[in-house]
């Protein structure tokens, strides 16, 4: 369900951006490809950047991470997609 919603939105409502400025509080998800000296190498679909691991515990290679201004601020729960689907279904009930 969520995959379908994402697709529909990107197709129908991906309005063009006049300036291309990025938002300050934007946090971007990426996959942890490597860890060294308190920093993670984050893979954003082929583009790699470093992020500090000072704000999270127990990060592991392969985890999905939410990155904000050079720091991992949370590890993403990959199981939670199903949880949101359940929440949406409940709302409909």
């Amino acid at each position, binding site marked *: *369900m*969520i995959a*379908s*919603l*994402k697709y*529909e*939105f990107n197709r*129908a*409502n*991906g*309005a063009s*951006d*006049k*300036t291309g*400025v*990025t*938002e*300050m*509080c*934007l*946090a971007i998800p990426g996959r942890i490809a490597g860890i060294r000296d308190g920093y993670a190498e984050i893979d954003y679909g082929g583009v790699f950047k470093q992020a*500090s691991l*000072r*704000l*999270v*515990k127990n990060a592991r290679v392969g985890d999905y991470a*939410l990155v*904000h*201004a*050079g*720091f991992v*601020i*949370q590890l*993403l*729960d*990959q199981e*939670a*997609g199903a*949880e*949101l689907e359940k*929440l*949406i279904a409940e*709302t*409909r009930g």
Partner: protein
Amino acid sequence: MKTELEAMKKNIAGLAESLGQVTIMEVCGTHTASIRKYAIRELLPGNVKLVSGPGCPVCVTPEQDIAAAITLAEREEVVFACFGDMMRVPWGERSLYSLYERGKDIRIVTSPLDALRIAREHPGREVVYFGIGFETTAPLTAALIEAADECGMENLSVFCAHKTIPPAIMQLLKGGSSIAALLCPGHVATIIGAQAFAFVADELKLPAAVAGFEAYEIMAALLCLLQMLHRGERKCVNMYPRAVTEQGNRVALALLDQVFEPCDAIWRGLGEIEGSGLRIKERYRKFDAACKFKTVLGGVVDGAGEAPGCICARILRGQSIPTDCPHFGGACQPERPLGPCMASSEGSCAAYYRYGG
């Protein structure tokens, strides 16, 4: 076959039919931008209105702090480091950008840790980092201060204007308002936890939903809010479970507590709010630019900077929308903004301008 999006739109329309005029406030600049970008307003029925609250950190930074930042950045010995969004916020005729154009050493950073690197590279200069942002960003500044302390950095300080969201929501909505429900900021909740917004339901008696930033996540949260209004429920629901837990990020919260303590703070548009700011604790005071440059900043006058007719303050309270402003898109544009809501890419005016009013 009906698409998922159509099903969601239909659900929202069905719920809205049972309700009168509904105004939902979003309190996050990134939500404001996403709502405009994905044209979410256009997917909602006519009686469901979305307004922005004080959720853009650049926009709520008061003139006094902009004036102080400009005063510091003008100094010969200072290298001033800040996020790019801060550059064009005007204070009278001046802005950080106008100083940069005159050759002042102002560096746009993408992480607070960049300030540490700059300080290392320029041992003879005073590096000042402008710490702005809510609970999402404040732990990063705390990490900068901790790292600067650990390596005994002498030439780095932080001008700290960090703020916390819950006291501002309380202040804005406690006396009653036209707001029927609250879309809570997902990345602030990543740090402070969904339970930090329970007061919206418990004390303000409004439905609240913590939302993510993809279009479907915002739509799902709006659906959840309308369902609660329809059923007469007042709960705080976490609709961003992939990134938000009930308790939040404990490591980040512990670091915030290690470096900062609450203080009263002035918000543009809202005035002074008790306990809504973060101040550097005594233990790390030598990294506090407000102390380091006390004599310099003592003479900075406030006021006298707001452009005549600018309605940013009303927009930040959710009382007006950008297109109500006579300057919108004319005298005030992102390249030459008259007020902070146009200067910041997260500001309502910039979002309306970029994606069409």
